[in-house]
């Protein structure tokens, strides 16, 4: 079973040279730590940065320089700063090649829910609705099974949606899945030490298994 860093490590393999990438809050943020040497990408932060760098050294924090998670960060050489409207312009116009975000639920047709639990938690959608509505390539990083043992890969989302038919790929603690055009979670890889049987038991929506499923290498 993968931990958060394991999920981030596996997703980092999806990041290709020359991509502009938006990383959501939580596990997606960790992906930045595992992008292989020699792969040149630019990280976009929707509050107005291209070319986001690591956290600043102690004492170098700048209140005017934060990422979309409100964390103090740095800029890499060649970075640029812009306003929020321009930022979502580049997202809407599909200049940002890859969006990686977290989810509470994903359905077999690629719907995603990640912004609201009615009556309990309402934090708001932030930029997630804009990102999922426009991005061509969306990868979700999530826990497949919640603390109560319930699957979060469903036939239909129960929580209020963030976007419809938009998720392309999902990486969880148990495996890697692709959403197929006619609906269904196609199992691509198993997490180390996880059996297909375990994955079947942890997937409430339609699971598609074709041939031998290899264990992922991370």
């Amino acid at each position: 079973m993968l931990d958060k860093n394991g999920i981030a490590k596996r997703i980092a393999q999806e990041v290709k040279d020359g991509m502009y990438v938006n990383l959501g809050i939580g596990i997606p943020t960790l992906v930045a730590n595992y992008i292989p040497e020699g792969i040149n990408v630019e990280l976009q932060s929707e509050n107005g940065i291209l070319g986001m760098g690591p956290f600043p050294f102690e004492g170098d924090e700048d209140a005017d320089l934060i990422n979309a998670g409100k964390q103090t960060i740095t800029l890499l050489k060649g970075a640029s700063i812009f306003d929020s409207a321009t930022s979502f312009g580049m997202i809407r116009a599909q200049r940002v090649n890859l969006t990686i975000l977290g989810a509470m639920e994903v359905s077999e047709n690629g719907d995603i829910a990640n912004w609201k639990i009615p009556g309990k938690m309402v934090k708001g959608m932030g930029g997630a609705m804009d990102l999922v509505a426009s991005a061509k390539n969306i990868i979700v990083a999530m826990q497949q099974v919640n603390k109560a043992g319930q699957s979060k890969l469903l036939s239909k989302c129960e929580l209020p949606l963030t976007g419809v038919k938009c998720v392309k790929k999902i990486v969880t603690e148990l495996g890697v899945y692709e959403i197929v055009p006619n609906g269904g979670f196609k199992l691509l890889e198993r997490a180390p030490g996880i059996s297909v049987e375990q994955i079947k038991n942890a997937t409430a929506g339609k699971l598609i298994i074709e041939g031998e499923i290899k264990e992922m290498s991370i």
Partner: protein
Amino acid sequence: MINKVVKNAEEALKDVKSGMTLMVGGFGLCGIPENSIAQLVKMGVNNLTCISNNAGVDDFGLGLLLQTKQIKKMIASYVGENDEFERQMLSGELEVELVPQGTLATRCMMAGYGIPFFPTPAGVGTEVAIGKEVRSITFRGETKDYLIENAFESDFAIVKAWKGDTAGNLIYRQTARNFNLPMAMAGKITIAEVEELVEVGELNPDHIHTPGIFVNRVFKGEKYEKRIEQRTVRKK
């Protein structure tokens, strides 16, 4: 050059009245108009509708106006950092309209551009689409559904810039540009507070982010706390 300078926050905000709609710049606590918010608390105007990406934290930013219950309605994209906000929202004391962040920014920008509405795919098929016109549009060879979103109308836009000159030209610093730039263009009256107020001619025209035509009043903020919400660092 037309002089936009006012003495202080008190003079800049003197005609803000209860019941008005205010745009307030910033992202999280980054680039918020600290002096203007403090002045609104002091004035005690209430029943305000505030358009801002976030609602501050409990004891800073717009959180200060929530504590004093001066805000009737909040229009924002993300409000996760504020317990008092959550309490007022869940108890029904505070009206909340959650708007996707890109839609929020563009509704400001469109107001500044003088464009009444625009189509966006954000929120199609979600709660955000309820009560809104959905239109199928073919654009760049792809046909999909778009929500029709209106430009915001606000009585005042209150923004914070790094440097401003007496003609109201503004330059922002780092990611404090965020919503300040689109909002500065969007207010019926735009008030800018700046860290440094300089004479005309001192700012390079090539470096101006917001042309002074959009700014009605500019003043030098007394002091800036610039609180950091998430201090994240690495070891040397």
